[in-house]
């Protein structure tokens, strides 16, 4: 096969990448713009990054978003792992089919509907039980809801290739089931847990729709701040913020990809 790319193919490739990454590249470039006007180039500067650090509203929102993402990702991984274990290890139990279906539902459910339904749930819960007050807690719960679905998919696919005779061997050698889980199962599926956590973290960090629905006064996440300030006109500060977010998200995706790649290699090694 001819490995050299022909001119039409290269052209297509360039257009493809330009279409995907052009807007992001221009955003990153304009975040270093001296001028206050977003569309006019006024020379290189990092002053908007400095301004960003003094903008308390944005810093608070960023801190809140990171808190929410960390907590919701952690809980999503715990619950998602348990759900995946139940689905893979126990082939027959009452409600297995519906559990599997309901876990996958948030993957395809429009965010608007998810947000609205959760809002209605939280409002009526607050009226009946007095908990949870809308704000940080409700956003965490909402993010957990859809993150669990993604985490379960990731961990379930790892467990599908898991050799459960390893668990049997551990128990045969005298290890209690709980010990077996922490000594054998957990270390071997850890890469999938890390990948799932990073995925959940990223999803939570950039969610705007669901958070807008279920948030209350005082709890404004970073995407909400960005969105509301853009409505008043794009400021170069937001460009700088977006650049930082793009950097962080790329890093997370890169780590998740590496972890999954290593996991795949390990799995192949185990097989032969």
């Amino acid at each position, binding site marked *: 096969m001819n490995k050299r790319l022909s001119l039409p193919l290269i052209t297509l490739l360039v257009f493809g990448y330009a279409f995907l990454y052009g807007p992001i590249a221009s955003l990153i470039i304009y975040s270093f713009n001296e001028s206050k006007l977003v569309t006019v180039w006024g020379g290189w500067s990092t002053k908007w990054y400095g301004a960003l650090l003094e903008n308390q509203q944005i810093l608070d929102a960023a801190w809140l978003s990171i808190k929410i993402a960390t907590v919701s990702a952690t809980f999503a991984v715990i619950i998602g792992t348990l759900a995946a274990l139940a689905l893979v290890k126990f082939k027959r139990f009452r409600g297995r089919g519906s559990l599997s279906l309901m876990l996958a539902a948030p993957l395809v459910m429009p965010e608007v509907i998810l947000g609205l339904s959760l809002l209605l749930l939280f409002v009526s819960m607050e009226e009946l039980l007095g908990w949870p007050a809308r704000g940080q807690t409700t956003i965490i719960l909402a993010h957990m809801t859809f993150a669990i679905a993604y985490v379960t998919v990731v961990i379930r696919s790892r467990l599908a290739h898991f050799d459960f005779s390893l668990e049997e061997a551990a128990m045969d*050698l*005298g290890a209690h089931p709980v010990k077996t889980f922490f000594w054998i199962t957990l270390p071997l599926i850890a890469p999938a847990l890390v990948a799932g956590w990073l995925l959940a973290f990223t999803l939570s960090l950039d969610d705007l729709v669901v958070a807008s629905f279920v948030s209350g006064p005082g709890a404004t996440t970073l995407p909400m701040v960005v969105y509301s300030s853009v409505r008043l006109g794009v400021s170069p500060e937001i460009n700088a913020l977006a650049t930082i977010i793009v950097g962080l998200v790329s890093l997370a995706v890169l780590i998740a990809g590496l972890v999954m790649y290593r996991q795949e290699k390990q799995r192949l090694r185990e097989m032969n």
Partner: protein
Amino acid sequence: MSLEQTPIVEIQNVSKQFGSLYAVDDISLSIYPGEFFSLLGASGCGKTTLLRMLAGFETPTTGRIFIDGQDITDLPPYKRPINMMFQSYALFPHMSVADNIAFGLRQEKMPKAERDQRVEEMMQLVQISKLAKRKPHQLSGGQRQRVALARALAKHPKILLLDEPLGALDKKLREQTQFELVNLQERLGITFIVVTHDQEEAMTMSSRIALLREGRIVQVDAPRRLYEYPNCRYSADFIGSINLLDAEVISQDEDLVTLKTDAFEQPLQVYHGQPLIAEMDVTVAIRPEKIRVVNSSGTHNANTIEGVIKEIAYLGDVSIYHVELPSGKRIQFTQSNIQALAEQPLTWEDKVCLSWQADSCNLLLE
């Protein structure tokens, strides 16, 4: 091995039901200390389910299992004085060879010095001391098998269960390892219970074999008895090759039974200890190596027949000949190839006269 010994494993009327299917159907077995016991059978005969019930991974639907007189039916696997070597070896991929072997000892909180010594002992036993720091994926198939064996033996179990222990090895290595396993078992004196579908493996290694079929025991015997005195068509056919002839009882004089068969005109004679009824339908089983070629005189004697050689399979040490009888029935016999080039070797379309002794064949009732 005397049968007055108390059994180390006693399986009492054990059944295991999966849905409406009986994987194991009312099996009772006694296994004695120091035995090398094989559970032999085709796939799906319930041998693995029985082994998994001994290990504690499956609970019998009915029946009890005793070890050293103690009822272990309801004990979880981690409390049983039994260890198992898995078919896939199930080595922990994230631990080194030494850590794999030490895993069981860690569970019983053995002090480190003693544990290290035991691990070293085990590695010497199966000759893998040089591999202590390797991870399982850096080992060959044969080395993994040794690690799995060392790990299962490390806790000095009373009974070692082995699930198709040689299944993943190639033929040469398998033959060599068979003898090593037997030597190891004799040296350690541990009771081995092996699951295998390979009759040769079972014959080579075992002191006794239980032949299973569809969840039931067909025959339990020493390899030689199982081969020489099968108790039914199934076990005769399962172990080695055999000629099976449908026959009808004509008369019985003390132990000597005379029969007739549709396969040839001459009468058949077999020794059989139990009294039989005339005209009873039975099966006569003759091993191919017990049939001899004789001069074609006295072809009206019992157990002497004529036929034409139709197929020859040369296996090196022996040759298998398929002989067609005038009735169309085919009989096979084997001859060892003693001479490199015999002067007048048997060849296709040769007419031969075959004969066998009345005491070298068996009469089977079912």
